[in-house]
């Protein structure tokens, strides 16, 4: 009789622990998805902003036509449905690089720098870029927690049963990793 109670207790205990780990893993997976969705929201904001920026600068910028066309083309490609996640990340990096180059080129056009409309758009772009960086950092924090659970014993047993694999972290672009130099940004403005 006793051994039956002991066996049932062990099974119940194992089951409860298994459910707790399972729930925790699902919660972490959902956090990762949630974080990824927040990146999407910020990228959408960035896409919405690009045409307005291109429109605001193209009247002033005579020598950067190629750059403007490239940014517009990259945006069109990025919002199309038939691209893989890897291609999309690559496109996003290129768009980010293109926008940075554009802001540097603005230095050569004092009239543009003085335009209220452009200053507002530049402020919005800075805002979106920082929100994007914040979303990526949230994603990385969520992925780190998820990866820890996938690899650490005993939750790794449940994770392998559920076919959960380690996820890769977002590589934060170098420009975002270095601290913002306020003086430089103010001068740029």
């Amino acid at each position, binding site marked *: 009789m006793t051994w039956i109670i002991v066996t049932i207790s062990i099974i119940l205990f194992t089951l409860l622990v298994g459910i707790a780990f399972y729930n925790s893993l699902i919660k972490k997976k959902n956090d990762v998805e949630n974080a990824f969705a927040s990146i999407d929201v910020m990228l959408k904001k960035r896409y919405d902003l690009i045409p307005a920026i291109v429109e605001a600068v193209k009247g002033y910028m005579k020598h950067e036509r190629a750059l403007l066309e490239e940014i517009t083309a990259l945006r069109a490609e990025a919002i199309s449905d038939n691209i893989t996640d890897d291609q999309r990340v690559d496109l996003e990096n290129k768009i980010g690089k293109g926008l940075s180059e554009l802001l540097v080129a603005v230095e050569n056009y004092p009239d543009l720098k003085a335009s209220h409309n452009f200053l507002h758009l530049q402020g919005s772009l800075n805002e979106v870029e920082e929100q994007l960086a914040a979303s990526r950092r949230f994603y990385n924090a969520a992925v780190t927690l998820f990866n820890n659970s996938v690899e650490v014993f005993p939750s790794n047993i449940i994770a392998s049963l559920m076919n959960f694999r380690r996820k890769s972290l977002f590589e934060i672009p170098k420009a975002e990793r270095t601290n*913002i130099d306020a003086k430089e940004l103010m001068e740029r403005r």
Partner: protein
Amino acid sequence: MSRFKNFREFYEKELRSDLEIIDQKRKRVNRRVFCILSLTAMAVTAEILLIPDTLDLLRGMIPFLTGVAGMILTGIFSRSYRKEYKKRIIARLTNYVDEGLTYTPEGSVSLSGFLKSGIFPSQCDRFRGEDHFTGMMGKTAIEFSEVHAEQRNRSESGSSQQNEFTTIFRGLFIVADFNKHFRTRTAVLPDNAERIFGKFGQSLQSISSDRGKLIRLEDPLFEKEFCVYGDDQVEARYILTPSLMQRIMAFRQKWKTRIYLSFRDSNVYIAIPLNKNLFEMRPFKTVANYSFMEKNLRFLILLTDIVEDLNLNTRIWTKE
């Protein structure tokens, strides 16, 4: 640095003569206070000796009341020159540090502003403040003052109820316009749990509170010093950029004390606990002294540098 370099000249031209006048008053008042205290002591002694049965409650009260009256008179006399010192000297010193700032000796950050920060419990039964500074520093609207917030605890002794007050916060409280728009709440609090209990402390933090969810940031040094709570994981990170985290760390080291921050309604609220009464005169030492005034100047600059320390004047986002 130029503020320090030119301060000697400012002191000689603008402050010295007034300080000497105030100092004369201080000496005069001190003499009066000494007389009052001596007379009070004599009166109390005489009452004790001459009233035959001092154990009688009513008669015992007379020396006590005489003592209290002496102390009150002393306070009234010394208040007059302290007030003058603040109005004439500290106000001018404030203008010297930043012309955009106004100083009100009796003013304070409002109770609603203090409670809105959400840093401390929402029940506050006694709230006092003084030395209120307010104004624009560059593009940043800022106000700060000394604050003493207390909570009432009722205790019953026998048939009577007694009120006891415990301090919730005493120190400097600052409200400044933050340079970004945001909608949710984020609080940065000293991390006592993690410092004491290590990793287990992290689990304790996540049990959390009404301040929102625990937010784990990627800077390990920052995480060791502070714990962050917020309503929105992304917005908390939008506010607390790696650069701002480093600035907060440097700010904490500069003040060498615990600091509390809260971001709410596009404002930043900062609480710095201090056990010192700031911008006061020295009753038994001369105030017409350059190094004493320089000390006040240093403190005022340390305070006003908050805008620079937290980079609040950088307006590269949509908030003007």
